[in-house]
C-alpha cells in the first residue's frame, strides 16, 4: 500500500480536483447503493408499507412538508429519497453489468478481428459499422420493442449497443501490436495463436479500455434512463432512476416537481462523478498526454 501511496498515480490524483470530486461522488453512490436499505425506514416496493394518505407530500422545507419524507413523496405515498436509493441500485447494476458484458464481448471480437484479419475481420467490423450508423438509443428501442421489456432485456439491448466501441478500439490496438516483433517472436517460438492472443496481445491492448469502460457506465445509466423514460425499460415494479423521472413527469407541470427533479439530480451527479473520474483516468493512462 505504501507503494501505491508513493506512486505517480496517487500523487497526480491528490492534485486533481476533478479526480477527487469524481471519486467522492462515485464512493457516495457506492455507499448509498450498498447501504441504501439500512438508511431509510420505508421499503418503497413493499406496497403494504405505503400509505396513500402520504401521497404528494412536498419536500420538508416547503409548507406541508413532513420530516419523515425529507425529499417529499410520490402519488403512492412513496418516499422520494428511498426511491432514489433503491432506484440507483437498479441503474448502477444495469450500467455495470452491461459494461462488463459489452467489454468482454467487444474485446473478444476485436481481438479476433485484429489478429486473424481477412473475412472474419470484415464481417465483424462491417456489423460494427452498421451499428454505429444508427443512434444507440434507436437500436436499443428497436431491440426492446422486439424482445419486450425487463431488466434482462435492457441488459441485452445495452450490450448490443455497447460492444462496438471496444471491438473497434481493441482491433486497432491489436493491429499495431501484432506488427511488433515480440508477437512475431512468439510465433517464431512456436506458441499457438490462442496463447499469443491471451498472453501477448490482450495485456497490451487493455489500458485504453479502462477509460472507455468507466465512462460507459455513465453512458449506460443515461441510456437506460432514456429507455425507461420512453416506457420500454425496466418494469414499474423495479423502478430505476429513469423510471422515477418518468413517473414524476406526469405531474411535473402540476407543481409537483420534486418527484421527478430529485431522481434527475441523482442521475446527473452519478454520471458527472463517473465522467470526472474517467477524464482523470484518461489523462493518467494515456502516455501521450503526459
Amino acid at each position: 500500500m505504501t507503494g501505491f501511496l508513493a506512486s505517480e498515480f496517487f500523487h497526480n490524483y491528490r492534485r486533481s480536483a476533478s479526480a477527487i470530486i469524481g471519486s467522492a461522488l462515485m464512493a457516495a453512490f457506492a455507499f448509498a447503493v450498498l447501504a441504501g436499505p439500512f438508511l431509510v425506514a420505508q421499503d418503497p416496493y413493499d406496497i403494504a408499507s405505503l400509505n396513500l394518505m402520504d401521497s404528494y407530500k412536498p419536500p420538508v422545507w416547503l409548507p406541508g412538508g413532513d420530516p419523515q419524507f425529507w425529499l417529499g413523496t410520490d402519488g403512492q405515498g412513496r418516499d422520494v429519497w428511498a426511491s432514489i436509493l433503491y432506484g440507483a441500485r437498479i441503474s448502477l447494476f444495469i450500467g455495470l453489468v452491461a459494461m462488463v458484458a459489452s467489454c468482454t464481448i467487444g474485446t473478444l471480437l476485436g481481438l479476433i478481428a485484429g489478429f486473424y484479419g481477412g473475412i472474419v475481420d470484415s464481417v465483424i467490423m462491417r456489423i460494427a459499422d452498421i451499428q454505429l450508423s444508427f443512434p444507440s438509443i434507436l437500436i436499443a428501442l428497436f431491440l426492446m420493442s422486439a424482445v419486450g421489456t425487463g431488466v434482462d432485456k435492457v441488459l441485452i439491448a445495452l450490450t448490443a449497443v455497447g460492444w462496438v466501441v471496444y471491438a473497434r478500439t481493441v482491433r486497432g490496438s491489436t493491429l499495431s501490436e501484432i506488427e511488433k516483433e515480440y508477437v512475431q517472436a512468439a510465433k517464431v517460438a512456436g506458441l499457438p495463436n490462442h496463447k499469443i492472443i491471451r498472453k501477448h496481445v490482450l495485456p497490451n491492448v487493455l489500458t485504453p479500455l479502462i477509460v472507455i469502460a468507466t465512462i460507459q457506465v455513465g453512458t449506460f445509466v443515461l441510456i437506460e434512463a432514456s429507455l425507461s423514460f420512453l416506457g420500454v425499460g425496466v418494469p414499474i415494479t423495479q423502478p430505476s432512476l429513469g423510471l422515477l423521472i418518468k413517473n414524476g413527469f406526469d405531474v411535473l407541470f402540476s407543481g409537483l416537481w420534486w418527484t421527478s427533479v430529485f431522481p434527475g439530480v441523482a442521475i446527473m451527479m452519478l454520471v458527472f462523478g463517473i465522467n470526472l473520474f474517467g477524464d482523470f483516468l484518461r489523462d493518467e493512462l494515456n502516455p501521450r498526454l503526459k
Partner: protein
Amino acid sequence: MTDQPLLAVRDLRTHFHTFSGTVKAVDGVSFEIGQGEVMGLVGESGGGKSVVGFSILGLIDSPGKIEAGEILLDGKNLVAASEAELRKVRGREISMVFQDPMTSLNPLHSVGRQMDEVLRLHTDLDAKARQAACVEMLESVGISRAAERLKAYPHQFSGGMRQRVVIAIALLARPRLIIADEPTTALDVTIQSQILKLMRAQIAEKGASMILITHDLAVVSEMADHITVLYCGKVVERGRTRDLINAPSHPYTRGLIDSIPDTVNRHDRLSQIPGTVPDIRNLPKGCNFRDRCPRAQALCAEVEPQLEPQHGTLSSACHFPLKPGEAA
C-alpha cells in the same frame, strides 16, 4: 553423419499477390547450410531477405504465398508440413533473432517469464530446472546477476542488454538453426561488435548453424562462412566469404563492398550504387540490375543472366562478370 546439409532451400518462390500486381519477393532462391555453418544473406532493403527467413519458418501471411520450391530441414520438406508440425519446428529446431530489441520483447512480462515460456513449450523440464537453464543461458550471454535479472522487465535493460536477452531466448531450446534478421542494425556501433562476437561464440559452442540476414557486408564479412547476395528476390552471387569480399564477380556485390566506409584507406568520397531498386511488381526483361550497372551492355537488356560458376568458389548471375583485381 551423412553429408546431407542441415537446411537446403531449393528454388524457393514466395510471391505476394496484391491489388497492384504480384510481388515476387523471393523468386527462385536456392542455398544450403551445413551443420555449424554461418551463412550471410545480403541485399538492399526490399531485396527479399527477410521474406526468405519467414518462408523457412512458414510464417508467410496472406497475401503472401510460397508458390514453389522446397525447404528441406534434415531432408524434411517444411513447405509441405502442416501448421502443427511447423509449430514444433519453430523455436525448437529453428529460432529467430529480430532486428529491434526494443520491440521484440513483450513490455508487460518479465524477462524470466518470456524465457520460461519457450522452455515450457519445448522441453519437459520442471520449474526449477527451467529456472536454472534460464539463469545459465543469461549468464552465458554476458548478463551478470542473472538470477536477479530474471525478474526484471524489458524497460529496465538497455538496447544491447535486451538484444543479449533476445539471443538468450533464441538459444534457449538449443535450436539447430538460428535466423538472425539484422540483429545488430538497431544497436550502437560500439555494441554491435560485442553482440556479433557473442553470437559467433554461442553458435560455435552450441554447434548451431545460422543465417545472418543483413544489408551490412561489414557485419557478414566478420561472421559468415558463406555469403549469398540477393537482388530483387534472386540470388545474384554466392560463394565463400573471403572470395566474395576480396574479389566479387558481380557488379552489384562490388557496389555494396565499395559503399562500406573505409577508415584505413580513405579515398576521397564514399562511393554509392546509383539509382534505386526497380519496381519489383513489373521487373523489366533481362538483368534486373542493368539500369544501375556500370558494365551493362545491350545483351543485359535482352537476356536474363543465370547463376554460373566464376573464379574461386563464386557463382554469379552476370553476363560480364568481374575478374579478380578488375575494377567495376
